[in-house]
């Protein structure tokens, strides 16, 4: 077993870290204060090729795959989980087209999405259907060679900035179908924008469809494929991406904990010499290593083409929970400074928490895992 990264992957990590520290870091405070999305950075990430890592070369991407994707998201998440989550949802918006689209659909949308000219999103959740996917009430009725979609989606990341949005709608009793709806389509608009306590700078809000007429050729797959498409994309791309964004937070917690503990003195010595602080740092280290290898293992499975829903759920469950507890421990290590807005621990904690239920609650992650466990270990 070779656990090392390739020279290209190491260079990619270094490059993304450089970009995140030089270009994202200066805007983090502004994002946190205003809650606004720095669209120049969103476009810039795609200019550098981060938006096209899952898209094949013939459609304008690089096709480097899922391990490379996790590297990019971890390094960006280390500086701003808000930016990492924005990017990973862009990948999620691409994924129905990448994995289930026709050749015409791929040629139509993927090149502009790879270059960041069009930003992606996936709209599934509704007030009545998040965990209960089949409970969604957005309806798509066939009229001639088009579908007319009516409904309201909530808690959609990139709701107000996306140009190409995958929308999951009911086309029959317990029949879900996936449509691509482009910005500017009459009857399609963003609704309320949410004001979150964390992940600020990552846009979350409603998507409203009022008799929105979408050509039949915008359907991904066939009627009824929507559930499979949604769950597959959310599992393999969405959950992996949320986990990677959280991984960046855990990594940052570890670095900040060590840096602060070496610098801060108490009783005439650095607090890194105090055993209680050492235990906190070790806890964060253990969480980082476990989260890291789980995230990369799941990505490796995906790059091999293997089914990995349980592994995706496991890494997302573990890493998002780890991000919250590591950020809490970091606040503790910083003492009173940990709760001040000038210091990073409080932002890491506020950014970690919204990731816990993103792309599925902890309980749903357990349901996905137990199905696989009961089958595999029977």
């Amino acid at each position, binding site marked *: 077993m070779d656990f090392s990264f390739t*020279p290209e992957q190491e*260079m*990619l990590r270094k490059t993304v870290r450089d970009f995140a520290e030089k*270009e994202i870091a200066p805007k983090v405070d502004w994002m946190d204060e205003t809650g606004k999305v720095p669209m120049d950075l969103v476009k810039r990430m795609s200019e550098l*090729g981060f938006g096209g890592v899952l898209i094949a070369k013939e459609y304008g991407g690089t096709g480097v795959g899922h391990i490379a994707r996790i590297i990019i998201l971890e390094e960006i998440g280390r500086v701003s989980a808000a930016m990492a989550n924005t990017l990973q949802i862009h990948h999620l918006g691409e994924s129905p087209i990448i994995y289930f689209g026709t050749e015409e659909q791929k040629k139509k949308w993927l090149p502009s999405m790879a270059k960041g000219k069009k930003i992606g999103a996936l709209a599934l959740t509704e007030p009545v259907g998040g965990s209960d996917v089949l409970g969604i009430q957005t309806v798509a009725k066939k009229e001639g060679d088009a579908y007319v979609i009516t409904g309201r989606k909530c808690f959609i990341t990139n709701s107000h900035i996306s140009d190409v949005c995958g929308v999951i709608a009911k086309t029959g009793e317990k029949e879900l179908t996936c449509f691509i709806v482009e910005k500017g389509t009459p009857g399609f608009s963003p609704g309320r924008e949410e004001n979150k306590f964390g992940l600020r700078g990552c846009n979350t809000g409603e998507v409203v469809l009022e008799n929105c007429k979408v050509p039949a050729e915008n359907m991904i797959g066939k009627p009824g494929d929507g559930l499979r498409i949604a769950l597959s994309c959310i599992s393999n791309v969405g959950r992996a991406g949320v986990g990677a964004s959280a991984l960046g937070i855990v990594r940052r917690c570890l670095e900040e904990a060590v840096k602060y503990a070496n610098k801060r003195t108490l009783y005439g010595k650095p607090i890194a010499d105090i055993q209680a602080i050492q235990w906190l740092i070790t806890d964060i280290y253990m969480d980082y290593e476990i989260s890291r290898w789980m995230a990369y293992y799941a990505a490796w499975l995906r790059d091999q083409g293997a089914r990995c829903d349980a592994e995706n759920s496991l890494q997302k469950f573990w890493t998002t929970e780890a991000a919250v507890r590591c950020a809490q421990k970091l606040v503790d290590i910083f003492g009173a400074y940990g709760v001040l807005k000038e210091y990073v621990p409080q932002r890491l904690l506020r950014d970690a928490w919204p990731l816990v239920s993103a792309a599925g609650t902890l309980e749903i992650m357990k349901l996905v895992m137990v199905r696989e466990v009961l089958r595999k270990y029977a």
Partner: protein
Amino acid sequence: MNFLNVIVCIKQVPDPQHLSKITIDPISKTIRREDVPAVINPLDKHALEEGLRIRDKYGGRVIVLSMCPPQAELACREALAMGADEAILLCDRAFAGADTLSTSYSLSLAIKRIGGFNMILCGNETVDGSTGQVPPQLADFLNVPHVTRARKIEFTNEGMVRVERSIEYGYMVVEVTLPAVIAVTKEINVPRIPTVSGILEAHQREVKVWTAKDIEAEEEKIGLAGSPTQVVDIFSPEIGRKGEILKGEPEEVVKLLVQRLHELGVI
């Protein structure tokens, strides 16, 4: 304007963000660089960026040249990822222990082997040695003019550049005929970040490796043998403080303090 080659000299150095991890071997008086990540010398990156901008505007090719141990292949690949057309690594045990003069000699031979060039760009100094001597010495070996501390380069007439050169409290403007060696400061530009496709392509391309024999170097002029300067000692100086305690009532102490600061020339 038709451009030939811009040659950019780069060096792999310890990452300045991790300089505190560097230790000094007390016997060999060398810097222990294990466990310290290595990067392209920051000012060399600015030099490379300037070369790429010149190429993008006027045509020609950017060739990166480095005299370093084998691990500097990574630095060369990073330069390729940024957009350099070619990368050459001068790598040979015979180059070990080289000071700036010996290094400049070897680089000049490699440049002569590369052939025609309009400009050689370097970072003004490296973060490890910080001598700033290689660019002027290189120019001397190549018998071309040089400008150091360049913060802006503009092309005026065919074959001439106008360079703003940083000096204390300002800058001076010089005109220099090409070909020339120009050493740049960080004010000159913001280096580009490699793209994902640039990184992938860089790892599929060749980094040429040249030895002392390939550049027909004279044995007595390279490496330790060719180095008139030797490192005798490396140490971290102890910075002590001259303490003086002024005692008395607050008003008296203030008067005394002002008087002392006056005497010391501080105010």
